[in-house]
C-alpha cells in the first residue's frame, strides 16, 4: 500500500521544487534499485529473456552508463526478516486473487505464464523468479570501466567489473538482516556514506530517506519515482528539498523551528494517520484535511526526544481533526469520544 497517494499529490503540488523531470543533473556515485516492484511486468513482455532485459538488465545499465553510478545495488525482499505485521497488508493484497498452484519444489515454466499477476503472487513462484534474476543478471550486464553490482536478496553478492571482458570478480558478504527492500537501502546508504540515487515507485522511500536525515546521514538522496512523458521523462524526487520544505512549513505552522528533527517524526506520524502498510488509517480524515489542520497538529504534538508518540497527545490530535472535519457533529471539547458523539444522542444544556 505504501503511503496514501494524496500525500504524493500534496507534495508534488506544495513542494514542486523537489520534483524535477528529465535528466539527472548531478551524477550520483551509488544507486539502489528496488527489484521487488520490478517483478510486475507489462503485457508487452512475452518471454523470460525480454523480462530480464526490460525489467533488470537495461535498468541497471542505465544507472551505470546514463546516470554515472559506479555502484548499483539491486535489492529484493528477504522474507525471513520481513516484519510479521506486514502480513495484514499482504493478505489484503491477495484478497480476491486466485494465485496459481505452484509448490516449493516446482520449476519455472519455459514460457512466461499468461496469468502473470496470479503467478507472481504465489510466494514460491516469486522465489523462483528472483532466483532466476539473481543467477543471470550479473552475467548479462556489461558496464564500461570499473563498476560494481551488489545483489542483495537472501544473500549479498558483489560483482566487480572491469571493461576487459573478463568475468566479474565475485565477493560474498553477510546478509543485512533486513527484510523489506525499501528498508535495505538505509543499510547501503549508511555503509557507503555518499549520495545515492534510488529507483523505486513506492512513496514510502521518501519518509524512510527522511528518517536517514534524522539519524544524521546528511548525504543527498534522489528518488527516481516514475516516468512522466508529458513532463519530459523520469521524475526525480530530491529528498533534501522535501526536507527543507517540511522544515519551513512545520516551523511556520508551529511559529518556530522544530528541534531534534521533530518535523520528520511528525510528518511520519501524519502519514501513519492516513494509512500505510503498518498503520490502519483513520477514516474520513484525508491527507488534505490533516494538512489544512497543520497548525493545530503542530501545536498539540511535542515530537522532541525519542521516536515515540505520546498516546494521549495523539488521541487529542485525532479528536481535534474529527472536530475540524465535522464541526456540526463533533465538539472538540466534549468529554465524550468522537464515536459516542455521533452514535448517541447529544444532550445540550
Amino acid at each position, binding site marked *: 500500500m505504501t503511503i496514501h497517494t494524496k500525500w504524493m499529490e500534496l507534495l508534488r503540488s506544495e513542494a514542486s521544487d523537489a520534483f524535477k523531470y528529465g535528466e539527472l543533473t548531478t551524477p550520483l556515485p551509488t544507486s539502489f534499485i528496488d527489484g521487488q516492484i520490478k517483478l510486475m511486468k507489462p503485457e508487452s513482455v512475452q518471454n523470460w529473456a525480454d523480462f530480464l532485459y526490460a525489467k533488470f538488465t537495461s535498468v541497471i545499465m542505465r544507472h551505470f552508463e546514463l546516470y554515472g553510478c559506479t555502484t548499483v545495488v539491486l535489492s529484493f525482499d528477504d522474507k525471513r526478516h520481513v516484519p510479521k505485521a506486514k502480513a495484514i497488508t499482504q493478505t489484503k493484497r491477495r484478497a480476491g486473487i486466485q494465485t496459481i498452484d505452484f509448490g516449493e519444489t516446482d520449476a519455472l515454466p519455459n514460457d512466461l505464464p499468461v496469468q502473470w499477476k496470479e503467478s507472481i503472487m504465489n510466494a514460491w513462484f516469486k522465489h523462483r523468479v528472483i532466483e532466476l534474476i539473481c543467477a543471470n543478471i550479473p552475467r548479462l550486464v556489461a558496464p564500461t570501466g570499473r563498476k560494481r553490482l551488489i545483489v542483495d536478496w537472501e544473500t549479498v553478492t558483489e560483482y566487480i567489473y572491469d571493461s576487459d571482458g573478463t568475468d566479474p570478480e565475485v565477493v560474498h558478504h553477510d546478509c543485512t538482516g533486513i527484510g523489506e527492500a525499501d528498508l535495505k537501502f538505509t543499510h547501503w546508504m549508511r555503509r557507503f556514506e555518499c549520495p545515492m540515487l534510488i529507483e523505486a515507485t513506492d512513496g514510502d522511500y521518501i519518509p524512510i530517506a527522511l528518517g536517514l536525515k534524522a539519524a544524521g546521514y546528511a548525504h543527498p538522496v534522489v528518488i527516481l519515482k516514475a516516468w512522466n512523458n508529458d513532463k519530459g521523462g523520469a521524475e526525480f524526487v530530491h529528498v533534501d528539498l522535501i526536507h527543507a520544505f517540511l522544515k519551513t512549513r512545520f516551523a511556520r505552522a508551529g511559529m518556530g523551528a522544530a528541534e531534534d528533527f521533530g518535523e520528520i517524526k511528525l510528518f511520519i506520524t501524519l502519514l501513519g494517520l492516513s494509512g500505510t502498510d503498518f498503520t490502519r488509517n*483513520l477514516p474520513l480524515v484525508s491527507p488534505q484535511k490533516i494538512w489544512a489542520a497543520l497548525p493545530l497538529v503542530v501545536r498539540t504534538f511535542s515530537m522532541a526526544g525519542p521516536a515515540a508518540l505520546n498516546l494521549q497527545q495523539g488521541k487529542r490530535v485525532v479528536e481535534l481533526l474529527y472536530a475540524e472535519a465535522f464541526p456540526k457533529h463533533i465538539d472538540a471539547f466534549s468529554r465524550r469520544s468522537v464515536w459516542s458523539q455521533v452514535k448517541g444522542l447529544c444532550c445540550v444544556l
Partner: protein
Amino acid sequence: MESGEGFVLCSLKIPFLHTHTQAQASKLGARNKALIPTDARIHCTLRNINFLLVYWLEFRPPAANEDFGFRITAEGVVQWDD
C-alpha cells in the same frame, strides 16, 4: 450543533435555547457515521504509528508486535488489535 439553528423534536421546530435540555440524533450520514472510529480503533492506529516511527527512524521493526496495535491469533494470523 451550530448556535441559532433550530432542530426538530416531536415534530415541532424549537429554537435553540441554552437553558433548555434538548436532544437530537446526529445528522451525520449513515455511511460516515459508521466510519467514525471508536477509541479502541484510534488507540490501535496510534500504537501502529509508534511501530512506524521505530521502523522508519531506526530501520528495524520493534520486537513485540502486541505493544504496537497488532495481535496474533492462536492460528498465527496477524490482525489489527482494536
